[in-house]
C-alpha cells in the first residue's frame, strides 16, 4: 500500500537524517543467511529470463496475456501491496498504537476489496481496458485520462524511489549494509526481471515473494505466542507493562479523539479510512488493480480479490502481532525516531528486534529475505504499473498514436528501465532532502480519494458527463492540495478539517480524503447536470444499467464469487466483534 496510507511511523526515519550516520547493526548474518539471500536473487532473475520467451506482445507484457488464474492473480494482488515497508511500518505502528493499527488491514481493506471483486471488477473487465486511466478515457474522454495517467505515472516512480531509499536505509540500520549497494542491487534486479518478462514476471515473482514473506515472518508470532503463553498471556503482559494505555481494543477507545493514542475518532476510521481512502486505493490504484486485469476470465477476475481478502485479513498475524509482542516482551521501551539516544531503539526496529530474538542462522536469512522480497514486490508493482500507464495512456495517445504492437512492447521494456532509473534518482534526491518525502507522500494522496469518486460515479450513474468527470476529479485533487497546504502553513487549521482540536496527524489524512472525495462528487454531479451526457449506447460495457453483466452460468454455490465474498465479510465482522 502506498506510503501515505500504510507506514507513517516508518517514515519518521526520513525526518531524522542523523540516523544514517549512526553506526549500528541489529542483526549479524552468517554465511548461510547470505547464501539464502543470494539464492533468492538468483531465483527471481532466473524467472525473469525464463518468462522472457513468453512475452511476445503488448498484451503479454502489460497484462500477462490475461491468462492468470484467480489464485495467482489474487496472491499477486495481495503481494504487490505487502511491501516490507508495510511489514516493518505497521509492526512499528502496532508497538506505538496497539491493535488500532489493525484497522488498516481490516476495515481499511476488506470491504473495499470485496467491493472491487463483486461490483467494479466486472466493469473493468468487460471494458477490456489496459488500465484505470484507460477506463476513464472510455467513460469520460481523453482529458480525464491524461489528468489521471500523468499524475499516476509521476507519483508511481517517485514512490518507487522512496520505497527503494527506505529499503536501503532499513538494510543499513538492520544489517549495516552500504546504502548505495542496497539501492543499486535491488533496483537493477527488479528492473531486469520486469523488463524481461513484464507483468508475467512481476506476477510470478510476487507469488513467490508472497510465500517467502509469510514463511519468513510467521515464526515470530508463533514463537512469541509460545513465550507469552498464548493470546491471553500476551494481553496480560501488555496490561502489566502499560497499565495506562488501551492497546488491545479495536473500537472501544474511538469514541473521542483524546481517548486513543492515534488521536482519531471512529468517524475518521469508518468514513475516511474505511470508505474513501480504502475504496480509493483498492479500487482505483492501478498498482494493485493491474494484477486483477491479468485474470483469465471474468470469474477469475471477481474471485481474485475475494481470495486476496482472506490473506489480507490474516496479515495482522505477521505484522501487528510482532508489534504487540514487542510491547509485551521487550525488556526495554522503544522510542520515537526523533528521540533515539545512544543504546536506544526506535519503534521502527521492533520487527528486526523480534526477528533477532527468535531466529538463529538460516532463519535469520529467511526473515531478511522476506523483507527484501517485500521491498522488491512493491517496487516491481510500481514499475510495471508505470510502464503500462506510460505506454498506453501517455505515450500512445499523446506522443505516437499509430505504431505497431512491437513498438509498444519495446517501449514497455525501455520505460521499465527508465522507471527504475527515475526511481534511483528519486532515492538519491530523498537521501539529500529528506523533507521531500513528506510532500511526495502527500502528493499521491491528493489523487486517490477524488479518483475513487470519479470512477464510482462513472460506473454507477449514466448521467455523469465527460465534463463532470474531468472537473470533479480536478476539483477534488485541487481541494486536497489546498487543505494540505493550509495545515502546512497553519497547523491550527487541522482542527477545522478534522472537526476537533484533539485531532492528530493521522486524522488529517482521513478527513482530508473524505472532504476531497465529497468535493469531487458534488462538483461531478453539479457539472453533469449542466452539461450534455453521452448517449446510452456509448456507455455499454462501462456503466451499470447500460451493461449486461455476463452470467456466471449454472455453477454450484461454492464456486460462486458471492458465496466466498459473504464468508469473507462474515469473518471480517466476527473479527471486529472479537477484538472490539
Amino acid at each position, binding site marked *: 500500500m502506498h506510503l501515505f496510507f500504510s507506514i507513517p511511523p516508518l517514515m519518521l526515519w526520513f525526518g531524522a537524517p542523523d540516523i544514517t550516520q549512526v553506526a549500528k547493526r541489529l542483526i549479524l548474518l552468517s554465511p548461510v543467511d547470505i547464501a539464502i539471500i543470494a539464492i533468492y536473487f538468483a531465483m527471481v532473475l532466473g524467472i525473469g529470463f525464463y518468462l522472457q520467451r513468453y512475452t511476445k506482445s503488448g498484451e503479454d507484457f502489460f497484462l500477462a496475456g490475461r491468462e492468470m488464474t484467480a489464485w495467482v492473480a489474487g496472491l499477486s494482488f495481495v503481494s504487490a501491496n505487502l511491501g516490507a515497508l508495510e511489514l516493518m511500518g505497521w509492526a512499528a505502528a502496532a508497538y506505538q498504537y496497539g491493535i488500532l493499527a489493525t484497522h488498516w488491514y481490516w476495515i481499511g481493506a476488506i470491504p473495499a476489496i470485496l467491493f472491487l471483486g463483486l461490483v467494479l471488477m466486472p466493469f473493468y473487465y468487460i471494458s477490456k481496458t489496459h488500465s484505470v486511466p484507460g477506463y476513464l478515457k472510455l467513460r469520460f474522454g481523453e482529458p480525464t485520462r491524461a489528468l489521471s495517467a500523468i499524475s499516476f505515472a509521476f507519483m508511481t516512480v517517485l514512490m518507487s524511489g522512496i520505497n527503494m531509499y527506505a529499503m536501503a536505509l532499513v538494510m543499513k540500520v538492520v544489517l549495516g549494509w552500504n546504502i548505495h549497494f542496497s539501492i543499486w542491487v535491488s533496483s537493477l534486479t527488479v528492473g531486469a526481471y520486469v523488463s524481461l518478462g513484464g507483468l508475467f514476471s512481476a506476477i510470478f515473482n510476487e507469488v513467490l515473494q508472497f510465500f517467502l514473506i509469510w514463511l519468513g515472518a510467521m515464526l515470530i508470532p508463533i514463537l512469541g505466542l509460545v513465550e507469552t503463553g498464548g493470546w491471553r498471556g500476551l494481553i496480560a503482559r501488555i496490561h502489566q507493562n502499560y497499565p495506562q494505555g488501551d492497546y488491545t481494543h479495536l473500537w472501544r477507545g474511538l469514541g473521542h479523539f483524546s481517548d486513543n493514542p492515534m488521536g482519531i475518532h471512529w468517524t475518521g476510521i469508518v468514513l475516511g479510512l474505511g470508505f474513501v481512502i480504502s475504496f480509493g486505493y483498492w479500487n482505483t490504484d492501478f498498482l494493485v488493480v493491474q494484477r486483477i486485469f491479468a485474470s483469465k476470465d471474468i470469474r477469475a477476475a471477481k474471485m481474485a480479490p475475494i481470495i486476496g481478502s482472506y490473506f489480507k485479513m490474516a496479515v495482522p498475524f505477521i505484522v501487528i502481532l510482532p508489534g504487540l509482542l514487542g510491547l509485551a516482551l521487550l525488556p526495554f521501551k522503544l522510542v520515537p525516531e526523533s528521540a533515539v539516544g545512544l543504546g536506544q531503539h526506535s519503534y521502527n526496529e521492533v520487527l528486526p528486534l523480534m526477528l533477532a530474538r527468535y531466529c538463529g542462522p538460516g532463519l535469520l536469512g529467511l526473515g531478511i529475505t522476506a523483507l527484501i522480497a517485500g521491498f522488491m514486490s512493491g517496487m516491481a508493482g510500481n514499475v510495471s504499473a508505470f510502464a503500462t500507464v506510460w505506454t*498506453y495512456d501517455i505515450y500512445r495517445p499523446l506522443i505516437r498514436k499509430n505504431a505497431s504492437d512491437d513498438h509498444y512492447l519495446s517501449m514497455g521494456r525501455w520505460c521499465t528501465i527508465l522507471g527504475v532509473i527515475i526511481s534511483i534518482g528519486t532515492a538519491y534526491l530523498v537521501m539529500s532532502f529528506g523533507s521531500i518525502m513528506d510532500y511526495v507522500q502527500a502528493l499521491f494522496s491528493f489523487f486517490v480519494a477524488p479518483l475513487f469518486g470519479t470512477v464510482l460515479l462513472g460506473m454507477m450513474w449514466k448521467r455523469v458527463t465527460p465534463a463532470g468527470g474531468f472537473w470533479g476529479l480536478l476539483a477534488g485533487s485541487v481541494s486536497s492540495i489546498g487543505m494540505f497546504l493550509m495545515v502546512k502553513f497553519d497547523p491550527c487549521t487541522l482542527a477545522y478539517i478534522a472537526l476537533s482540536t484533539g485531532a492528530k496527524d493521522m486524522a488529517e489524512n482521513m478527513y482530508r480524503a473524505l472532504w476531497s472525495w465529497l468535493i469531487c462528487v458534488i462538483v461531478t454531479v453539479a457539472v453533469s447536470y449542466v452539461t450534455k451526457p453521452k448517449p446510452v449506447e456509448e456507455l455499454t460495457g462501462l456503466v451499470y444499467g447500460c451493461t449486461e453483466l455476463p452470467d456466471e452460468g449454472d455453477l454450484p454455490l461454492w464456486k460462486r464469487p458471492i458465496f466466498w465474498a459473504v464468508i469473507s465479510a462474515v469473518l471480517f465482522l466476527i473479527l471486529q466483534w472479537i477484538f472490539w
Partner: protein
Amino acid sequence: MDEKPKDINSGDGNGQDRPEIDLAKHSDHHMIPVWFFVGVILLIYGIIIFFTGISERADPPLEALKSMPTWVQHPAIWWGALLTVIGGIYVYAYTPRKS
C-alpha cells in the same frame, strides 16, 4: 510501420471499437507453473535451514527460547523440515511432465 495497433484502448473513446482479446493465441503455452518455482525455492531453503539447525542442535538455544519446550528451542530444525515438506509437495505436484 503504420500497422494498426492491436491495442484494445484504440478508438474514439465511445467504446464501440474495442476488439476482443485473442486468448486463443496463448493456448499453446507450456509455461512452467509458478507453483513449481515456489516449490523449488522452499525445498532449497528447507534443506539448508534444516541442516543448519541440525548442525547447531548441540549449541545452547537463543536466550528467549530457553524457557520454551525442548522441541521448540531449535526452530531451524522443525521450520526447515516444514519448508522441505511444503516445497517437496509443490515440486512433486507441479514438475512439468511430458504428457
